[in-house]
């Protein structure tokens, strides 16, 4: 009994340490606390309907337009520096034949036009979300965010923050392939 009194607290403490260490170091399970899992993944994309940024820029789309194709929807803004950083990768995706749509988040039409002219417009369609109401509907916490929508209009994947080469190759492309095959 006396031994138990000494050993038990130490054993419990050691077990707790072990569990915490396992959770903290297991990066594959995506346990980064700043990455929030979206409850929308696996659910139909909430209904939104967005106007185009301006005449001459292809766009304006609603959730219904997303059906029938696998679509990457990228939430971006001209004032967002990480968006510029990931812009070449978004362009690459579009050039590889993926249908890429954009949600222009909390921006002005003039700024968006200038930005797209300067850096190129890879988006097949852009929805203008000046008041971020549609972003809210999709559970967007900040820009950039990237969604993969399957043919049924279901959110298959969500990437928070700027895309990186690593994320593109290890997560986005395999997911696109999986969704396209299914």
């Amino acid at each position, binding site marked *: 009994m*006396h031994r138990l009194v000494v050993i038990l607290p130490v054993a419990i403490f050691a077990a707790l340490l072990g569990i915490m260490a396992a959770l903290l170091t297991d990066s594959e399970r995506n346990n980064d606390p700043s990455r929030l899992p979206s409850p929308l993944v696996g659910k139909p994309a909430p209904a939104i309907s967005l106007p185009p940024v301006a005449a001459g820029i292809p766009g304006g789309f609603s959730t219904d337009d997303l059906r029938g194709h696998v679509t990457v929807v990228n939430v971006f803004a001209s004032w967002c520096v990480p968006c510029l950083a990931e812009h070449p990768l978004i362009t690459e995706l579009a050039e590889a034949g993926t249908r890429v749509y954009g949600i222009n988040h909390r921006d002005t039409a003039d700024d968006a036009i200038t930005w797209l002219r300067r850096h190129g417009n890879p988006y097949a369609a852009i929805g203008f979300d000046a008041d971020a109401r549609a972003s809210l509907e999709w559970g967007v*916490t900040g820009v950039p965010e990237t969604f993969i929508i399957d043919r049924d209009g279901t959110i298959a994947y969500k990437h928070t923050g700027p895309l990186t080469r690593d994320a593109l190759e290890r997560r986005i492309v395999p997911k696109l392939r999986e969704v396209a095959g299914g």
Partner: protein
Amino acid sequence: MRPTATLLAAVLLALLAGAMPSIAVQPDEVLDDPALESRAREISAELRCVVCQNQSIDDSDAEIARDLRLLVRERLVAGDSDEQVVAYIVARYGDFVLLRPPFQANTLALWLAPPIMAVVIATLAILYFQTYQRRRAAGTGLDPLSPSDRAELDALVERIAASDGPPPPRSRFRNEIEEGLRRPGDDEEEDTEADADDAGPSDPNEPRPA
């Protein structure tokens, strides 16, 4: 004059009352219906601003907090109940937006760990003190005299008893000292010795008869 002053005071008071409790809520967000507005404030205080982590949307100046405050009010005006408003936002941002985590399967450890730990710690503490008390009662807490120390002490006592003159008055603490030195195993033995010693007067301070 007087009605104008009263009106002015009322307007000022209303403005103050509206401004004082709110930290982040802007005047243009406030709903006309005070009942709806107070419900909105209550809901907002329970919802996390997702980019500032530990502030409620009611406290935060972040743009997304403002958007969520407006969304809460929009849903309330549309006729949603408080629960429906919260469910609407949880469906989009997850349980993380709730500053008070719900009691459900994946939060069992969170809610149950503290009471379980309290019970475990209390049990261990009780066991420890019981063991301590038992050992103290058994006297095993004190080191008994070694046989050679004891023999030396006995010899000393005998020599004093055998020396000339009246024996020194017996210390009133002697009983206690003997009590403390007694080994747990040899209680009976000691008792017979003590009985033999105590054949004299009961008061230990009184000189023994020669």
